[in-house]
């Protein structure tokens, strides 16, 4: 790509050997190697597992938002036939949490409860119905405390502390303040300043599979735990920590997962209490959450209030951004410290910006804890930023698409807050959706009730720094090559539906010249698979993919050296393709892949190799910039077309055009699936999804009343894959699973303005809100 020519050295540092792809696998549309098992119902999920003597755990949950626990009486529950035992929070006093500086959670409440639905006790019984009845028979006596339910209350120093050990003046988990350049000078030099407030609602992930854990106490005192988790490694660490066990005595297995979207990134009460009860009772314990409980486990999108002030020059360039955000985080930290950074650190992407200031607060309230939901922390501010861009373009008389393109950063540039951007396909993305949607001709000209809206966004490909301090590999892959020709790939990754199993098989197959289906992927089992940090921050393809290439290349070197010796050529003269290893210049001269394995095993011995990946220390100018830097960034542009019914206020999303710079599509179908999935979730957040409360009670913890779009509400989605071949990505790949989430809602909001002349600054854009705004506009 010509735009990459001027990149600095750090932007071109090659992660792998950089050999051109030759295996013929990349960019194809193969069905996932594990896809059929899911389609025919053969995939084994945690809840499918049954063990002899297994019992079921059921939580007793708080009916109070904020209260001291005065007494817990389990006698009526224990008297029921079939009840075999129970566990209380006090039995598991060690605090845990993925983020080391914010470990504030225990598996069940101890002494006080902090949200309605918080687990207090777990009852175990021989069947689920008995456990359910027994849990309902437990009596908990509370001494109510004043609940803290809103952003205002959380900031109020007169309100009680939800976490009494906190030394902060109010219920603030983390305040982040960062300033780059001279913001005030930037505003002084601007021709236009736009300032407004936005409210983004809380929403949740809705994985079809609930959280499930099954624990088996082993005869040797060890523990095996099956868990529907996105992050086996962190669950492994925290379960061992809380249970007081050595990590090597806990085996964590992740069976097939029915999606996560960030909702299964934390260790949950299911994992820890199942493990504890299994050891206490000496028999297997399964805990499978009900849908209502999944809503309480939550870790969803933070409801966020935002204030954004932006300065512009007449030509549309941005002179300064001042941004404040307050995130209502619920009762525990979860990933909230990271959220407080993600709310601000991506704002300098993808537009050139020298002067930037942001202040964010992640707050505690007496509600289920928020955490990482697809596009973690970056979705909310993107709505404000992209609406501001459109508002500025209209006020300045500029084309919103042209203004965005004119301000795009270049590959090889560093943002004002020290993010180093190695590849950028932003302009290509905008061009693709603008051309396909007819935006240039149709925006502003569709007439009343119909509109087009454009938005752009950028996201990360994994965090440069691991969440706990270490210099070890962030991803690792082990390969075993059988003399049958089968390659077994071991990885600690957790495919939660995004396709990481197929990604690993495809990259391995690409390097070894075989087919993805020739690779058997064993993942997410701490007894078998080397560590991978998990499925979060859009890191898996980039990091595990690089680890996979590294391991595959080592196998390839082994096979090549044996074949080269046999054929009397140099290793470098060989190609791997079509299940053959052959002389590149004389393709008929070669051996089959199986024969290559035999030759290598004869010459060298059994073939097994390991590869690891950690990002190069491309670093940052700013010592404190620990959250935000990523080895690469993805870019997305979207155009939404909407219709608004003037009598009902009902918004219909007619079509979405989306273009995403994923670096390189390893499998085009899976990339498109990820992009469409993001758009789908964006449509839900734009039109329907909002966690509403009646006081401290979630009003609709069910899939009937918490409405995610059905096939009817899902618009036609036309997807364009933009490939920029990132220098550090595996064969140039970046990410596709989260980035496209960011620009869907702002594209819809901008389209709504085009349709109605109203800036809707608070999703979801429900019919009553739209109708009320339309009537205000008329009067």
């Amino acid at each position, binding site marked *: 790509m010509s735009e990459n020519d001027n990149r600095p050295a750090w932007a071109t540092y090659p992660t792998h050997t950089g050999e051109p792809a030759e295996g013929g696998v990349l960019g194809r549309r193969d069905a996932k190697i594990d896809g059929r098992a899911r389609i025919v119902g053969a995939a084994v999920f945690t809840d499918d597992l049954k063990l002899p003597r297994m019992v079921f755990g059921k939580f007793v949950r708080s009916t109070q938002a904020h209260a001291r626990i005065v007494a817990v009486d389990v006698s009526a529950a224990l008297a029921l036939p079939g009840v075999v035992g129970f566990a209380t929070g006090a039995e598991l006093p060690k605090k845990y949490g993925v983020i080391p500086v914010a470990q504030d959670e225990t598996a069940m409440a101890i002494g006080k409860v902090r949200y309605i639905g918080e687990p207090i006790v777990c009852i175990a019984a021989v069947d689920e119905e008995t456990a359910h009845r027994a849990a*309902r028979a437990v009596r908990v006596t509370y001494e109510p405390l004043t609940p803290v339910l809103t952003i205002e209350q959380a900031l109020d120093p007169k309100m009680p502390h939800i976490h009494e050990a906190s030394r902060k003046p109010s219920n603030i988990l983390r305040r982040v303040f960062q300033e780059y350049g001279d913001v005030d000078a930037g505003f002084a030099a601007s021709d236009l300043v736009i300032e407004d407030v936005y409210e983004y609602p809380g929403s949740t992930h809705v994985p079809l599979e609930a959280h499930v854990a099954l624990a088996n106490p082993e005869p040797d005192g060890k523990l095996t735990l099956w868990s529907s988790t996105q992050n086996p490694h962190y669950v492994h660490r925290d379960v061992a920590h809380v249970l007081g066990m050595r990590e090597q005595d806990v085996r964590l297995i992740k069976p097939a997962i029915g999606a996560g979207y960030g909702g299964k990134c934390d260790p949950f009460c299911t994992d820890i209490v199942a493990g504890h009860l299994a050891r206490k009772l000496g028999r297997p314990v399964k805990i499978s959450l*009900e849908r209502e409980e999944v809503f309480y486990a939550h870790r969803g999108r933070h409801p966020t209030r935002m204030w954004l002030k932006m300065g512009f020059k007449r030509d549309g360039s941005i002179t300064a951004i001042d941004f404040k955000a307050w995130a209502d985080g619920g009762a525990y930290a979860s990933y909230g410290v990271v959220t407080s950074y993600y709310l601000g650190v991506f704002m300098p992407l993808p537009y050139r910006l020298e002067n930037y200031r942001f202040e964010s607060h992640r707050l505690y309230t007496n509600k289920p804890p928020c955490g990482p939901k697809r596009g973690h922390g970056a979705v909310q501010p993107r709505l404000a930023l992209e609406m501001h861009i459109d508002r500025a373009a209209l006020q300045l008389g500029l084309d919103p698409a042209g203004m965005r393109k004119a301000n795009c950063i270049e590959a090889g540039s560093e943002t004002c807050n020290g993010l180093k951007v190695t590849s950028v396909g932003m302009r290509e993305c905008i061009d693709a959706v603008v051309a396909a949607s007819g935006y240039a001709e149709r925006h502003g000209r569709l007439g009343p009730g119909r509109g087009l809206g454009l938005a752009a966004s950028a996201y990360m490909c994994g965090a440069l720094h691991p969440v706990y301090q270490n210099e070890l590999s962030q991803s690792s892959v082990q390969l075993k090559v059988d003399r049958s020709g089968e390659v077994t790939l071991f990885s600690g990754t957790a495919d939660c539906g995004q396709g990481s199993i197929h990604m690993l098989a495809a990259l391995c197959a690409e390097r070894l010249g075989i087919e993805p289906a020739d690779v058997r992927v064993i993942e997410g089992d701490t007894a078998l698979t080397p560590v991978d940090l998990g499925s979060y921050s859009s890191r898996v393809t980039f990091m595990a993919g690089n680890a996979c290439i590294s391991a595959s290349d080592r196998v390839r070197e082994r096979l090549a050296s044996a074949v080269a010796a046999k054929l009397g050529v140099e290793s470098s003269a060989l190609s791997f393709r079509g299940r053959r290893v052959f002389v590149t210049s004389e393709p008929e001269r070669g051996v089959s892949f199986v024969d290559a394995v035999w030759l290598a095993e004869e010459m060298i011995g059994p073939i097994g190799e390991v590869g690891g990946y950690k990002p190069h220390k491309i670093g940052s100018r700013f010592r404190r910039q620990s959250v935000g830097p990523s080895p690469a960034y993805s870019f997305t542009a979207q155009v939404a077309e909407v219709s608004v019914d003037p009598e009902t206020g009902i918004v219909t999303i007619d079509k979405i055009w989306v273009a995403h710079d994923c670096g390189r599509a390893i499998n085009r179908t899976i990339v498109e699936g990820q992009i469409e999935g993001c758009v789908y979730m964006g449509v839900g957040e734009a039109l*329907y999804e909002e966690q509403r409360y009646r006081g401290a009670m979630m009003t609709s*913890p069910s899939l*009937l009343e918490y409405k995610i779009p*059905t*096939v*009817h509400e899902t618009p036609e989605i036309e997807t364009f894959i933009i490939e920029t071949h990132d220098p550090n990505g595996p064969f140039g790949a970046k990410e596709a699973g989260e980035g496209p989430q960011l620009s869907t809602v702002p594209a819809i909001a901008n389209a709504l303005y085009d349709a109605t002349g109203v800036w809707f600054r608070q999703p979801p854009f429900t019919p*009553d809100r739209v*109708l009320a705004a339309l009537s205000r506009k008329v009067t």
Partner: protein
Amino acid sequence: MLPLPSFQYEAPTDVVEASRLLSEPGSQLIAGGTDLLVSMKHRLFEPRLLVSARRLGLRGISEHAGWLEIGAATTLHDVARHPTVLARLPALAAACRTVATPTIQTMATLGGNLMLDTRCMYYNQPAGWRATLGYCLKREGTVCHVAPKGRGCYATHSADTVPALWLMGAEAEFSSARGVRRVAVSSMYREDGIAWLRLERDEVLTRVFVPLDTRRVVHRKLRTRQAIDYAQVLVAVAGPVSPGGTWTAVISSVSSSPILVEAASAAELSEAAFRACQPLSTHLAPATWRKKMVRVEVARAAALIG
């Protein structure tokens, strides 16, 4: 997962036996079960005995003397695709097709829809949620959270097929060990969220009769999503029998019983409906918007009649 409470199950083969079983305390009739089983999981009902309608011979559609007879256990799927229903009673077919989802329509029955429990945002919730709330007037509690100072229960009639059947002049046959009675669908309900059905506990809805010479009826269901959801506003509208006659609408999902509205013109009908209906706020829609939608939906239905 959310377990069903345990229960006994009987599948009698005649209605008299079913009626006898239903007269016993703690028994409950089950047809398709698509609503009942969810409510049982929510512990709204914990029946000792479920009496199945499956083997009562109540499935099937036939024509007699200008009436279409629909067995109460006929599935909504079968009703919606029956040639006579499609040709002569398209609003009934349309109403059946708006219930929940196509998958649920293959289990749910027409009789079950007519007998559908009234619904409320404080009632149709899991047991733990209702316990936290302190329960409600309709189930286990003493206060209606919709109208804490009121005396009644405001749970909402939400049966999609009822407004159309009402306007078509449909009738329902109830059988018990004590005999058989046949009543107009329009007289089955009353404005009481708890006792919304005029029914004795041992009675079984056996057949639904729909006159084939009915007026043209238009069914409309306004809902958040085009599948799964219950209505925000449910209307059926019929035009005058003869020129200058009365326009009629039945509106449901806004009160505990469907509301009948009559007017001299289509325009007056939508205004009369707007005045007659006082819907409550739901999870996703405030009462003010729903009230406006009554007018819009009645007007749109009337426009379709022309």
